[in-house]
């Protein structure tokens, strides 16, 4: 097993092979909420590039602005200062061009639609033909292992299945950028492991860029090619760690010394950036 891993490790990680401009470029990005006494600095002076084809995790304790950064990339929050470029455009233009798929903390499925029709929702909005919608829905529901549940309603599925449906929905219009906000945070450990494996394989197969918010160190190390460590009050980036692990991974990787070393490094940076007072 160890020998096998070493051989795979010899192939360079995807992020470094990617060429061209970064998918996301933040420079001196700050976001401030409220005013006067209520004023909170959610993000302060964040400078960050996210390369095409990379899997970047944003990790940090609550209040470190990781979700805010993700929402800013998605044009769900407006920067107060600095610049943010997505796919070479302003976030708003990128959103209007439907550049990204977004997976929320909760599945946010519409309860009056079947699983299949939930997955077809973005396709309907984007005006695809009914036949193409059905084809796409079938393809991505199969991909997340929900093919036989397409006629069910969301409340008839478990939490893990609902979140998988929401991932299929985000993939259905085949965006090149996938933004995920703690998608597995509410799930039990075993379901979470399974979905991590799924997601890793998906990323590997499609070559899409993924920005992934989490507060789980093992999850971040397992999935990412880069980990952005953030600290709270005010939210800022304290370190960016390249994950030098094989490009193809399975869950056993988490027991290896190489994995634990990266995890240890992330933990140290997190601790340094966060006081417990």
């Amino acid at each position, binding site marked *: 097993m160890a020998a096998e891993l070493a051989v795979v490790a010899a192939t360079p990680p995807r992020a470094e092979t990617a060429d061209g401009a970064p998918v996301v470029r933040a420079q001196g990005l700050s976001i401030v909420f409220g005013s006067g006494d209520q004023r909170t600095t959610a993000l302060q002076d964040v400078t960050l590039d996210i390369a095409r084809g990379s899997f970047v995790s944003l990790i940090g304790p609550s209040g470190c602005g990781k979700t805010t950064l993700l929402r800013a990339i998605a044009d*769900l929050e407006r920067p107060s200062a600095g610049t943010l470029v997505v796919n070479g455009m302003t976030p708003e233009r990128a959103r209007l061009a439907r550049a*990204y*798929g*977004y997976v929320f903390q909760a599945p*946010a499925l*519409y*309860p009056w639609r079947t699983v299949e029709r939930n997955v077809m929702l973005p396709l309907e*909005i984007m005006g695809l033909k009914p036949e193409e919608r059905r084809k796409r829905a079938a393809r991505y529901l199969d991909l997340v292992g929900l093919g036989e549940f397409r006629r069910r309603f969301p409340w008839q599925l478990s939490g893990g299945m609902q979140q998988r449906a929401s991932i299929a929905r985000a993939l259905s219009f085949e965006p090149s950028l996938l933004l995920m906000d703690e998608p597995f945070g509410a799930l039990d450990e075993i379901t979470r492991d399974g979905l991590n494996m799924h997601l890793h394989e998906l990323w590997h197969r499609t070559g899409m860029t993924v920005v992934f918010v989490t507060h789980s160190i093992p999850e971040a190390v397992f999935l990412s090619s880069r980990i952005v460590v953030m600290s709270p009050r005010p939210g800022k980036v304290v370190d960016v760690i390249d994950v030098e692990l094989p490009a193809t991974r399975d869950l056993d990787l988490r027991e290896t010394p190489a994995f634990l070393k990266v995890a240890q490094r992330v933990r140290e940076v997190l601790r340094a950036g966060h006081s417990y007072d």
Partner: protein
Amino acid sequence: MIRRAAPVAVVMLAVLVVWYAASVWLNYDTAANLADEGATRWQIVGDTMRLDRPLLPAPHQIVAEMITSIFGYPPDNPRSLLYHAAVTAYAAGVGFAIALALGVVLAVGIVHVRTLERSLMLWIIASQTVPVLAIAPMVVVVLGNIGLRGMLPKALIAGWLSFFPITTGMVTGLRAPDPMQRDLMRTYSASGRQVFAMLRWPASMAFLFPSLKVAAALALVGAIVAELPTGAQAGLGARLLTGSYYGQTLQIWAALFAAALLALLAIAMIDLAQSGLVRRRGGRL
């Protein structure tokens, strides 16, 4: 079926027992005055359930009156209870349709146009503080003077009385989607029309149906009250009024029961529509 029917039957039985007791008690004096000299107490008690103009008719008398007034005459005869019920149902139905259209349009306006919320909501609430029931006769007379007669004035009062629950229900329903559901639409850069059609409208249905039931009952009340003045010749309201002029308590109670049955019918129709929607949604509204 028996499990569901049993509690209803028990309540019904209790009501009947109390009712018979009450009609004996309330009608006893009248029956005693009419009774022959030397009638026994038990004969008088028996008479209390056979009076022509009882203070409180016994249930079987009302049933008998309903049967004769429904089946005793052709449905287009002014003596037929069906005829009057149909007249009222028509006005209430048109009023309900007006209320539905007005309620939904107002709600959509209030949810989508900020200035409308501020300007309209005040007037809508004010409109409901007007005691429509008290001034309905006056409204009907005024509308009659400008040429609006027959069904329409009644429908207008029914609509006035019943649009409010629809408006408030729809405003709540259209605002029901949570921030995440709305953000999702934003990430797809959906148009306002798409957000309405694919999110707000379907989300509002769970709030629309309960308010429709309230509105249906109110529309019926509105139509009946509007029939009371100006010596209206037709409708359940007219039946109530002529009944009370001539002391025909049986006729009054038969009309009241007809109104209750109409309300049940309306609610059943709304339930039917609702269960159709629930079926399409896999069992939940």
